[in-house]
């Protein structure tokens, strides 16, 4: 249904709580929280729970020494305090929320509420501290946010370790029962059905055999205890108390109608999460209205909309028409919000590791469904299958730093639609690997992806050990990637080709594919040109600060993490290596050509015509290609083969990751 999104948390601020010394992040309606184990994903949710979760007890809201930021020594002896604030947006279309929470207003455009948990200390005369917590609305500590308010706006956490089967069987708590409560089911109707059921089932008792059995029991029984007390025995079929008849409903799955206990854990998990989501939907517009309720509502101003949206069925109930126009729906929402009003409140859902027990394909499916709902969702995950399909702006990235876990979000990254799609596609194809590195080396193509880890190995700086990953973007459009990684505060370096060129005269076209020769007068490096453009567009450098000398410019970009070659990586490698035999050796191993071809390659190599060598590698006669050549080379390369700019880049990213 086309209804406005339910309220969501738009900002979280945490001070001194568990992994977090200081955190201030913006969030959106759907968030995927990622990060390594023990980095504090659960604690991030816990911070929000302290304010919003109705299941937490008063006791739970009193913190211990261990709940303070771990960098503080004996916090409770020193009067340290914990403060957690959340801002809420997207609530002001609903009168119930306005009525209950307007005291918490932080600003009105866009309408924003703030709720704060404060664990504060008061000093005793002997210097020790007493602790109390307070949850308040807005900026004034004197307006409390209590369990009463939490009825209307709260957080539900589905924990990682969950026993779905028991939850579903629990009569009172089962999601199916929660869902039933949303309807206005009348006792009289149930009683009627119960009576008829009883009548039918009583027929069983008229079977001769059962009549005989009853008689036998009775005669046995009465011979023992005599007839003085009312002790006749009879048989009953099932309990048909109309009050309990709904509790007997069970969910069955499949055509064979298997009960939940016979279904796979994975399927049950999906069923459970779907039921929860269903029960959290905005229920301001009831799908069914009883006749008397309908007639009562007709008395109200603007009730014409009812006639347009509901039709009476043969049971006398009024059923909401499907396919209502957004305009009608909006009107109906306002009407119902004013005069009927579901008072069950809004819930923000937090799901920890939805991937548990699920096949990767199902993980993606359930995630995509969750993202479509009106309910605001926060989920933590380790699953690349989920992160890889998460919208680019939905990432909350937790990262452990020496001064506490930092939380970064992509909610406010502004990307063009094209860049956004590219990035999303990239993240999807690469299974979200970009999120899992402690540092990232961004490279142009597959050749670098093969070689750079080997180079690092050769430099005794293995990337895996540091959790550095090498990401190839298959183009030179680094800008969205840099923007995105910047937002997540992941350290990165960019390695890109220099792509040397020259021009006939100052204004003619760039000519590529040649190595430097003395007669080239107007020369340049496309790698520098591209980098300059990106850095200026991202606002990282001011055009006037860029050195005019080409060598200085190249050096200048290194402080912005861009390491630029001279030609292409292969040529730079050949040029830099003292022992060039290795290239001929790898070529000979891989080529499908004969001895002549091998000799021609060796000749080109010897006379330093590396452009020609590269052409031979890529030619259809050799059928090698850059990728395979690099792959071949990667197992054999040594320190000698590493171009300086690449070595520098590797050293740079190592330092950065070590600095954290």
């Amino acid at each position, binding site marked *: 249904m086309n209804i406005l999104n339910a309220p969501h948390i738009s900002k979280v601020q945490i001070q001194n709580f568990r992994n977090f010394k200081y955190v201030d992040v913006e969030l959106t309606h759907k968030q995927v929280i990622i990060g390594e184990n023990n980095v504090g994903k659960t604690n991030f949710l816990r911070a929000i729970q302290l304010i919003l979760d109705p299941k937490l007890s008063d006791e739970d809201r009193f913190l211990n020494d261990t709940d303070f930021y771990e960098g503080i020594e004996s916090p409770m002896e020193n009067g340290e305090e914990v403060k957690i604030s959340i801002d809420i947006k997207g609530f*002001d279309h609903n009168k119930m929320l*306005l009525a*209950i929470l307007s*005291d918490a207003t932080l600003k009105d455009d866009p309408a924003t509420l703030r709720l704060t948990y404060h664990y504060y200390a008061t000093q005793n005369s002997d210097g020790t501290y007493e602790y109390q917590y307070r949850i308040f609305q807005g900026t004034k500590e004197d*307006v*409390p946010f209590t369990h*009463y308010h939490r009825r209307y706006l709260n957080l539900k956490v589905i924990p990682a370790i969950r026993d779905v089967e028991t939850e579903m069987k629990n009569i009172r708590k089962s999601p199916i029962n929660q869902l039933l409560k949303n309807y206005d089911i009348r006792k009289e109707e149930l009683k009627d059905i119960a009576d008829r059921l009883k009548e039918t089932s009583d027929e069983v008792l008229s079977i001769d055999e059962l009549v005989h059995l009853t008689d036998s029991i009775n005669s046995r029984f009465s011979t023992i205890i005599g007839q003085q007390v009312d002790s006749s025995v009879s048989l009953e079929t099932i309990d048909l108390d109309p009050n309990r008849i709904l509790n007997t409903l069970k969910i069955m799955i499949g055509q064979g109608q298997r009960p939940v206990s016979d279904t796979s854990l994975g399927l049950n998990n999906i069923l459970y999460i779907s039921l929860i989501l269903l029960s959290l939907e905005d229920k301001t517009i009831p799908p069914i209205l009883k006749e008397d309720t309908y007639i009562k509502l007709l008395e109200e*101003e603007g009730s014409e909309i009812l006639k347009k949206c509901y039709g009476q069925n043969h049971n006398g109930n009024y059923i909401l028409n499907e396919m209502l126009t957004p305009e009608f729906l909006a009107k109906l929402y306002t009407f119902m919000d004013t005069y009927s009003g579901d008072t069950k409140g809004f819930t923000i859902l937090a799901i920890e590791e939805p991937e548990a027990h699920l096949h990767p394909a199902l993980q993606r499916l359930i995630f995509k469904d969750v993202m479509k709902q009106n309910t605001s969702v926060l989920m933590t995950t380790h699953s690349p299958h989920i992160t890889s399909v998460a919208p680019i702006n939905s990432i909350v990235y937790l990262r452990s730093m020496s001064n506490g876990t930092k939380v970064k979000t992509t909610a406010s990254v502004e990307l063009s639609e094209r860049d956004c799609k590219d990035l999303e596609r990239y993240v999807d194809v690469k299974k979200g690997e970009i999120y899992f590195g402690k540092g990232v080396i961004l490279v142009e193509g597959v050749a670098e992806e093969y070689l750079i880890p080997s180079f690092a190995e050769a430099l005794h700086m293995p990337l895996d050990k540091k959790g550095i990953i090498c990401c190839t973007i298959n183009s030179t459009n680094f800008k969205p990637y840099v923007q995105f990684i910047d937002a997540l505060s992941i350290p990165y370096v960019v390695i890109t080709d220099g792509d040397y060129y020259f021009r006939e005269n100052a204004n003619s076209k760039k000519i590529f594919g040649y190595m430097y020769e003395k007669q080239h007068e107007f020369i340049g490096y496309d790698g520098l040109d591209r980098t300059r453009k990106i850095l200026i567009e991202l606002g990282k450098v001011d055009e006037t600060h860029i050195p005019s000398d080409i060598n200085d410019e190249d050096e200048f970009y290194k402080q912005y993490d861009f390491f630029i070659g001279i030609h292409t990586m292969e040529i730079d490698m050949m040029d830099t290596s003292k022992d060039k035999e290795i290239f001929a050796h790898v070529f000979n191993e891989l080529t499908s050509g004969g001895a002549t071809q091998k000799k021609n390659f060796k000749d080109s190599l010897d006379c330093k015509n590396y452009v020609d060598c590269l052409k031979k590698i890529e030619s259809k006669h050799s059928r090698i290609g850059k990728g395979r050549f690099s792959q071949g080379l990667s197992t054999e390369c040594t320190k000698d083969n590493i171009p300086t700019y690449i070595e520098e880049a590797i050293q740079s990213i190592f330092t950065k990751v070590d600095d954290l």
Partner: protein
Amino acid sequence: MDLYSLKLEQIKKDPDQYAAFKSNMSTVVKAGPGSGKTTVLSLKIMHLLKEKIKHPRGLACITYSNEAAKEFTNRLKSFGYQKRQNVVLDTVHSFCISEVIVPFAHLYDVEISLPLNIISKNDRTKLFKEILEERGIDKKSLKIEAMDKERNQLIGGDSLIEAEPNDTARKVATEYENLLINKQQVDFIEIIKCATKLIKEHEYVRRCLEAKFPWILIDEYQDLGKPLHEMILTLFYKTNIKIFAVGDPDQSIYGFQGAIPDYLLELYDNPNIMSIDLKTNYRSNQEIIDAAAIALNLDDREYKAGTRFDEQAEFHFITCEAEMDEQYQYVVNNIIPDCLTKNIPLEEICVLVGNGSHVKALSKVMNEANIPHYLSKHEFLKSKMIVWIKDCATWISDKSSISFTDLSDFWINILSSHHGGLSEDNKLHKRKHFLSLLNQSVKYQSNLHLWFSFLLNELNLENIIAGSQKYASEIEHISSFQQQITVGELKDYDLIKFSRVGKPENQVTISTRHSSKGLEFEVVIMLGMEEGNFPYYSTVSVPKELNEQRRIFFVCITRAKRVCFLLRSKRMTNLTRYGLRTHPKNPSMFWQELYAVRESKRSLY
């Protein structure tokens, strides 16, 4: 049958009352004297809360005074009302502070400084006098009320009612307001103005109010003046809040505060607001009702008695020789003994006088004659804080009469607005402490002054109130209350006597004419019915003011169920600029009009 259903059955018999009860759109109810408006209003509130308005939304019921608000709360409780979120029964000022200014003013750029700092009554008068002196304006020519009236009228907005401008007052008003802003203080008029402005200018504020209060009900609309009227018009035009205004233009007698009947009538005449007239009088017999119509000098009111059918009214016109004292003596020596012989209990007798000093003088005479009597409307009971103090006293003398939870809730509220929200543990702790203090205070129960001083100290009340926005204005009430219990009216009271203040028990009621609204008695005795005294001489030539005097007379007569006494003296001594002077006095024009009609009626039979 519970009280709610019982009362509901009753009003179902009166089609007008029932229509007002059922109305589902903005409605104005013009309610004549004794027409049961309070019953209708409180039943309506219950009905709305039970059937129309779902949690957590509520409604606001705005009353003229704290006493009225408290009376409403008690009445609703007797109908089974339980405290609930967003249900506000309070005065205009409290509503503006706690529902508009405190929650929203900090979000916007407003002229008043926050937190609110309310100017004391003394400082206010001082400021006003300073302006007069500086401008060389004669103190007698401009009263502070006249300035306030002007300030109220300066509020622009949707109302089309024009008032005659008073240039001097306007100038003083402007300067006064500027000085107030400089001092970073506010007074009650500024508070309503500020609240109205916030509502007018900010959609978000209106949406929040609409969400909280789908209905706003106003009692005694005619007494509430222009600022509230503008606020209500804004809410009516710019939100979907339904307005339910109850009042009687004929009982509009606070003109000196800027309250005129026209505002209620403007609402009444709005074609998009349903208008209902409650015309049946369930208090007085038809002859009293007819006499009241004469008082107004209008004959289109069509009020009919709904009780006391076939009963004759009594009108007695008593002429004394000289001075008020003779009138007091007549009341004490003749009227009251006479009533007693006719089995009319003292609590069914009320004496209405012109002003406060007459109240005191009569009280003295009654004391000498040992007639139990009681003074209606105590200034100090207008304060929520003092009413709470009184409730505490009542609880100490009789623990079953008042719930300790209510008492301690109020205390917790005050504490929270000073300290910030308290944790549940803390609240419990404060409650315990409060309970033990009240129990300790029992040792002072024979002396109100000592008892109050003990509480004041132990609770650190003054400091705590000074630090709270919502209650800051109460400081003043506390000091004037202290005055009362040390040297004033409540001197030498014990707690039992104090707890009975405001509840007549076999006592004659003495009241000023202005304060008599809402009361009813078998016998009403009106003193001071001389020309120049009533209507007051300065009003006779100003039609608007004379009309208000008529309405006061109307209010006085309609207090009576059956019997009216009018007393006057032939000679009166007044302090003039030449010293004491005695003048002959003719009967009041109201006396004469009523007398003529009664005489002609008598001659008919």
